[in-house]
């Protein structure tokens, strides 16, 4: 039996995954104190309780905001509103969220509370990945901006 994979099903999958990730990101908020304690124990430093949760709360907050924008974007696509300025704004906000996360983790990389060299590397990797995703999303945003302009030109050609 073969399943015909349509665009509607693909969109449904994207929306479901976005909502699932959003729920996980919200749930992660409650796990941050546990993660921080675990990290503090692992890095053998006792004064980390104050700083590490802040980094994680900021990152998770930005992730939740970015996921909400993604949800709005997919809702617009579902409603056949694809090449609209609102979607470009969503991409722009997601991109800035990624850059903000990258800045936070870059700060973490070079701050002394990252005690172990391995964790310093992990923090840098997270910063790099966030910045890279932010850059890609920004290019997509520029592409969508151009598409919106083209659509408007097409719509207003009589």
């Amino acid at each position, binding site marked *: 039996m073969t399943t015909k994979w349509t665009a509607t099903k693909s969109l449904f999958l994207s929306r479901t995954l976005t909502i699932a990730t959003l729920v996980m990101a919200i749930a992660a908020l409650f796990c941050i104190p546990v993660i921080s304690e675990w990290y503090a124990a692992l890095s053998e430093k006792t004064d980390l309780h104050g700083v590490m949760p802040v980094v994680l709360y900021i990152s998770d907050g930005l992730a939740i905001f970015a996921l909400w924008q993604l949800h709005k974007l997919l809702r617009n696509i579902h409603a056949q509103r694809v090449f609209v300025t609102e979607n470009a704004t969503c991409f722009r906000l997601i991109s800035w969220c990624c850059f903000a996360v990258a800045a936070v983790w870059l700060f973490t990389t070079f701050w002394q509370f990252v005690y172990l060299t391995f964790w310093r590397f992990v923090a840098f990797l997270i910063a790099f990945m966030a910045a890279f995703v932010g850059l890609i999303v920004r290019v997509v945003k520029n592409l969508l901006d151009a598409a919106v302009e083209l659509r*408007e*030109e097409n719509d*207003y*050609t*009589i």
Partner: protein
Amino acid sequence: MPIVVNLDVMMAKRKISAGELAERVDITPANLSILKNNKAKAVRFSTLEAICRELDCQPGDVLEYVKDE
């Protein structure tokens, strides 16, 4: 936009309504309104040809170039 559409002037001269012109030119009244209100970004030659034919005028009677301040 420095190109101004003087369609309403020509329509008044020829005493033709917007609905009638839209029907004769074969465009929707909404599109004719966009054209009349200078909201259009481009005009197809086929549309311009039909407008000139129905209003018995030249493209220059409908379109005007106004220098930007």
